[in-house]
């Protein structure tokens, strides 16, 4: 009998990722932020691992390079925090500064806090996915492949 669970879990990937993106982008104005966004995206990947196994879940590029994404996230975080220092600002100065005008509509605003939150999201996602992947690798007997 064909189970309806694997197709369903695959169908859930896109909506969940879109919700995660929304959580990230509107985090500055409403409920959300990079941390829950990363955790949600990680949960979707976790679902893929549980339902379809490591081999199938690793078809997604972002899953194969999750650890690298965490590194990129840390770079984004450190970059937004310390690049302003070179221009003479205090560390973790976000732009536009208080009082300056900003572009945006609704809950979405162009602000360097978005990059910061994006870094958070990538780190959390990278951590969750890498840990799952390592668990899956250690419990299965298959050989490690890819990065």
């Amino acid at each position: 009998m064909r189970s309806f669970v694997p197709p369903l879990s695959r169908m859930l990937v896109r909506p969940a990722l879109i919700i995660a993106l929304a959580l990230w982008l509107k985090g500055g104005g409403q409920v959300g932020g990079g941390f829950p966004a990363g955790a949600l995206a990680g949960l979707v990947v976790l679902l893929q691992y549980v339902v379809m196994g490591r081999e199938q879940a690793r078809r997604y590029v972002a899953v194969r390079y999750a650890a690298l994404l965490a590194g990129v996230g840390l770079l984004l975080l450190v970059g937004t925090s310390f690049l302003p220092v070179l221009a003479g600002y205090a560390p973790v100065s976000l732009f536009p500064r208080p009082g300056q005008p900003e572009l945006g509509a609704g809950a979405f605003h162009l602000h360097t806090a978005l990059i910061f939150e994006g870094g958070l999201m990538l780190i959390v996602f990278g951590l969750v996915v890498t840990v799952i992947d390592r668990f899956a690798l250690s419990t299965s007997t298959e050989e490690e492949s890819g990065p």
Partner: protein
Amino acid sequence: MPLLLPILLALACAPLAYVAGRWRPGASAWVGASGAVASLVALGWELTLGPARLVLPWAPTWGLSLEFTRDGLSGLYAVMALSVGALVVLYSRAYLPHHLEEKGRPARDEVRFHVLLLSFMAAMVLLVTVDDLLLLFVALDLTTIVSYLLIGYDRDDPESRAAALLSLVLTGATSVVFFAGAMTLGLQYGTFSLPLVFERAATSPASTGALVCLAVGALGKSAQVPFHFWLPRAMAAPTPVSSYLHSAAMVAAGVFLLQRLYPLFAPALAVRDGLLAIGFLSMTVGSLLALVADPFKRVLAYSTIAQYGYALVLVALGSEGAPFYVAAHAPCKAALFLTVGAVTQVTGKKKLSEVSGLRHSLPVLAGASAVAAAGLAALPLTVGFFKDEVFFHALVQRGPAFMAAGLVGAGLTLAYTLRLWWGLFGGKRQDVPAAPRLLVAPVVVLAGSVLAGGILPGLLVEPARAAASAMRGEPSTLALAYHLDARAENLLAVGAWALGALLFATRLAWTPGLARVLEVVSRFGPELGYRRLLHLLDRLSTWLHELEVRDLRDRVASVLVPTGLLGLTVLWVTPLRHRFLPGTVGWADLTLVMALVFASGAALATLRARGHMVLVLLISCVGFSLAMVYAFAAAPDVALTSVLVESVFTLLFAGLLALLPSRRLERAQQEAQKPRGRDRISAGIAGVSAFLLSWSALSHLQADRVGTQTVKLAEVAHSPNVVAAVLTDFRGLDTVGEMSVVVAALLGVTSLLRLKGKR
């Protein structure tokens, strides 16, 4: 920021060399050396612009900033570190392949060596350029850490590892003492910026304790008595390391610190007298040991201890020749180290008693090292002559006793230098294959510079004066020239040569006796104390370790009990009024209370849970109930995050259970059902402490003040979501720190589970 250009170039060398090494291992040395030369050129251009300072604010509210300076002292030392560094890297290009082959390691390990050496160079350049007590300490520790990796480069060799550990422990421990001194000064003067500290020290002198702490840090680095014994042991490192760290860099750092901080030491006559005594003692001990040591590198190591003793004496006397002395010593000593490295590579021998008469097979090396040896022994026509001239000049002003001590010291220097050179190149002819050109060329370049400085001393006057005036904070009148008259300095020099020649000529008569005496004395030296201390620490750590790993419950207790006791102590000593307020509960709080009751119920249920899966689910139940509490308390952001994190956590925890052996899990279950007495006590301490701390913290919520203010500020910061504003803006630096921890945990998980997968 032109001042940073040489530092940035020096910092770029190591990564560039690494990248080049990935492409082709042989290229990394050349790329690194060119980087060092580029940095040197940039530095030379900078020095023509005159002194300057650069202040980068870091944490302005605490008065902390990153300060850099460009003055004579930093220029002199940076030129020394960069030029010797470039030569040593090129030399190690020729030295390393042979060394690695001998140790049975792959040829690509060479890249690691160059990268480490260049990182050390960068740390050294940073150290001499910074102008701030805290950065000084940071740079000092950077040199310590890289030197540990360099000395322990032959990882498979236990002797090498022990030597690396010894140098790390000694120079690390003394640099912590230095840090204590720096902090004391920072608190005393309210700033860490050196010019400000000097300015304020002019009216209120620094405390003796702080100065002694600073001096201990410097003495440890410079391998002065009683910390001297790490240096000879560090000779287990590959020769380029010894040549660099122990001529122009690591040991120079200690004396450099004293010169940089000289304005603080100037009024403290008692401290300076102590330094003077240590300097003379190191001179004597180092010279005597150098006279009898058999391995070449040991001779040079003891000589380094003695020579930095000279430099220490000069600093203690406040002589303006102190920076010049170090700079003149560096090329001579580096050239000699490189010479003995080449000899070891060609002959495979490491001891003076095993080689002789190499002048026939290695004529160029013999000639170049003769110049370097002459420089070390302060013969005329070499730059070394002037280093002893400034030394004698400083002693003459202090009287005959000092002059006699200086004469004996210089005589001993000549004697052991002659012994070394003659032992290598003089005597009965031995035929060996020719040395590779790249091994000899750096020695020739260094010898050329030694000779050039001796023939044209006028070129050196300007840099030496600039360094001296930067050290002493007043214009310098240092003069370097030959005088053909019967002045005291010249008489002392001639006397020293006569004494040295006499000692060398009669060496066969006294060497065995001196060796025996020193052997007996060294058995009771400070090295014994170090070994005892290490042994005791080792036993203590083994005891603690066994206590911790014997049992999982003890391991958990060893974290929880100290934390709990710390919490209770904090509560005990902090004076707070109304420490534990019960607060009020109304009907509106009903939902909150219900959620909390649920959480408490789940927490209590864990006590009786059988099976780990149930335990995991109960714990996650606690988490979800708390998320519910946040939701009821109108904190949707926190609630959302808790729900998501709790889901991930529960699933991962369940996955983790699959990785553990089931027998272990069963045993842990049985143990958990039968708590011992001390388990109850540990749990009680941890629980009571956590409960009281939370209660006390919640009793002091300044909800109105902090909350309203935060909401207002979040609006201004373009982030109406207060949680996001706190996370990214107000507490952004904390977030960066926490996320670094997350990434570190990620790396830990990756490597741990990969290990498991391999088994």
